[in-house]
């Protein structure tokens, strides 16, 4: 059995340890927000956080996350509110088909956690691994920059909550 934390809850799985994390999350734990796009770590639709780092989970064996913290789009915001990125995504009507957006948001969230005020070039390079076939790139970039302005407040709310 492989044990890890999934969106804050401890879970365990007896799946083949070589199974990519994406399929364990989707088929065993039934969280469908993370998507399958290429199976080769090339498009970023499957992006989750493993110990806070954005990772392509379609090529990451589940055994690699033993005893680690896995966060999916479903667990992105630990508050009752949406994550500032998600609010910016709605405000800018970012999604078209929407299929890649969980991965885009998870990559962007990892960026903002490490660099709360990125430049446009930093956003581009952080999201270069995420393909959007509908071509929402200009809006994704605008939304990440807009969300970065709201990050301090969000992080304050998070830390206040954790102290309680």
């Amino acid at each position: 059995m492989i044990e890890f934390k999934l969106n804050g809850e401890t879970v365990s799985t007896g799946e083949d340890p070589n199974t990519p994390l994406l399929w364990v999350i989707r088929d065993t734990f039934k969280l469908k927000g993370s998507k399958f796009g290429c199976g080769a770590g090339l498009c970023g639709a499957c992006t989750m956080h493993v110990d806070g780092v954005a990772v392509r989970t379609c090529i990451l064996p589940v055994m690699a996350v033993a005893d680690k913290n896995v966060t999916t789009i479903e667990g992105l915001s630990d508050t009752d509110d949406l994550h500032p990125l998600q609010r910016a995504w709605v405000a800018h009507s970012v999604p078209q088909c929407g299929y890649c957006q969980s991965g885009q948001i998870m990559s962007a969230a990892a960026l903002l956690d490490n660099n709360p005020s990125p430049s446009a070039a930093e956003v581009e390079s952080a999201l270069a691994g995420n393909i959007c076939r509908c071509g929402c790139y200009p809006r994704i970039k605008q939304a990440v920059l807009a969300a970065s302005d709201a990050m301090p407040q969000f992080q304050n709310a998070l830390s206040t909550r954790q102290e309680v």
Partner: protein
Amino acid sequence: MHIENVSRRRFLKTTAVVGGGVVIGFSLTGCSSPGPLPIELAEGGFVPNAFLQLLPDNTLRFYTPRDEMGQGVTTGLSTLLGEEFDFDPLDMDIRFAGVHEDYNNPGMGVQATGGSNATHAHFDQLRQVGANARALILAAAEHDLAIGQEQMSTDNGEILVGSERYPYGQFVKTAATLTPPTEAPLKAQSAFKYIGRESTRVDALAKSTGTAVFGIDIDLPGMHHAVVKRSPVAGAALQSFDAELVKTMPGVTDVIEIGSGIAVVAERYWQAKVAADALEVSWTSVPLSKVNSKTIRADYEVALTSNEALVPTDEGDVDAQWNSAEHVLEADYWTPFLSHAPLEPMNAVVRIQGNEAEVWSGTQGPVAAQGLVARFSGIDPERVKVHQTYLGGGFGRRGTLTHIIEATQIAVATGKPIHLLWSREDDLKHGLYRPASLMRLKAGVDAEGKILAWDAARAGGNISEDTIKNMMPALFPGLGDGMIDWTVGLAKGALKGWVTDPSSIEGLFEDYDQVHTRIKHTTINHGIPLTFWRSVGHSYTAFAKESMIDELALASGQDPVAFRLNNTQNKPRLQNVIRVAGEALQGMLPKQGHYLGFAAHHSFLTDVAQIAEVSVQAGRIHVHKVLCVVDCGIAVNPDIVRAQMEGAIMFGLTAALHGEHQIQDGEVMESNFDNYPILRMTEAPSVDVVIIPSTDKPTGVGEPGLPPIAPAVANAVYRATGQRLRSLPLRLA
């Protein structure tokens, strides 16, 4: 409770109380529609027509007849209905309609989504539906409140009488007893409050939280996962395979032969995938097995000069103009096979229980999905329930549903609910493609820069043949295989011998004023499966046409904008977008080393002009900025118009800079995003969209932004480097 057991007849004849809900039916078109509406009736719910159900608590369910693949049609159509019903689309509970004739695309006569026509085709219909329903609610309120309608107004789902507000839902019971009007008056454009409003998409929240449901997300009890191993060469037949090894692999329950290959079924997707990868299969050789990219191109070269070419257009006397023309130019343009590569790979879930079947999939043709499940399960189409989901990208790819055939065959053979998923490799190597084209253009201009004659030939495949082959079994599930083959053969013969598929040449010649025009077409299909690809023929004809126009302008010593203005006197709307873009161009001051390229094109009833700002550094083409001017009639949701222009530009840039399939021994060589790259954020230009204000009926938005971008970039590259690139993708020497 479901109302599938209520016959449409009863619907029409009575105002019946069904399961605690009140339904009345009328057909908007006046035609009788067979079968019940696939609407789940809520307690006390009122269904005045196929598109809406109003609940006593004032919830409005809108059953959207078109499929949402990102183009924003759900927002657009709910806005049309909401405008006249007076109900904010952002407050509606929107659901995908099931299969029923009432949900047919009025522009196609079938329940399908494509061709950038939905807003245009539904513009009058859904506003009329909304207006009729509003009039009905007002009449019911007049009855219940004993107040004259002249004292009432409405505001977002409520009737206002003085300072009192009454939710629409309060009147559903009375409304159900009244005769619904059929021609309630429509608002003037000046009174629109939702149409033209700057507003977010109705699906933005679900798609920003991972909660939007796509076909791949369907998960049923007892469901098994299937992966199909297919021939590397399209059309090759199975020779032999060894199932013994993989049958013993973990989780594998079935290894079966189906029409398109070998299906491996397992309890988990990953188990099926690992087993299918381990499966050894051999295939027969077919004529396509001898085909390579080079031989295809060579065959097209020969075909261009074939005396068997059809001549769908021959106006004036083209050949008489060459001597009198000041400049005559001739050039060949090449565009390759392309994949749609929607980010969600093809998938379908099929469950068969007794003589009932269900299918879950995001498709551009729910009625075709129903027909295919019926045909390949032997179940009556009326007993096949289609659950439409969001589409993780369509672009034309999800109009052909061989994956639904596969899932049905596997479900029938195994008796299990089946979740079939294609890999990215399956998508790119076993897909349906945008046809490759070789186009030869010859044009002459007079001393004033007026185009005298336009002589264009195209060689390449037709999508119609494959479309007919794929659609016939879907639309006529009861027809025998022999009949289908015969009909398809007949249609193919007709296409080959008599007529040119319009989509093969659309956009090649129509936009400019020349009097003398000749179009030749030679069909040459090697067996690579073909289908509609975003903007279809325009995706390649615009590249040839607008590159040639640029060459003609330069040869004439004219500014490319002035040249186009001079030659679009008979196309005022196209001329206007060129003029507006040209004025904007005056104010664009490209940085040193940046160059501007111009292109314009009419497609899907919409006119678009684009300017690309490009630089070339170390042999690489960089597109920094795009200005896009669009006239699409009334912009129902201006922000979605902008988004579609942005998206189409990015889609077109992938084709302009990267997109190309190579064929080797009949096999498509590209397999994933490493060798079939998609434009990434680091390459994406900023885009400014200017929407021309209009009082005209809305026209296409999903596709028209694509055709001008490749020639706009190519024309800029010429200015940057002096190299005239006449093949896509653009590659510098």
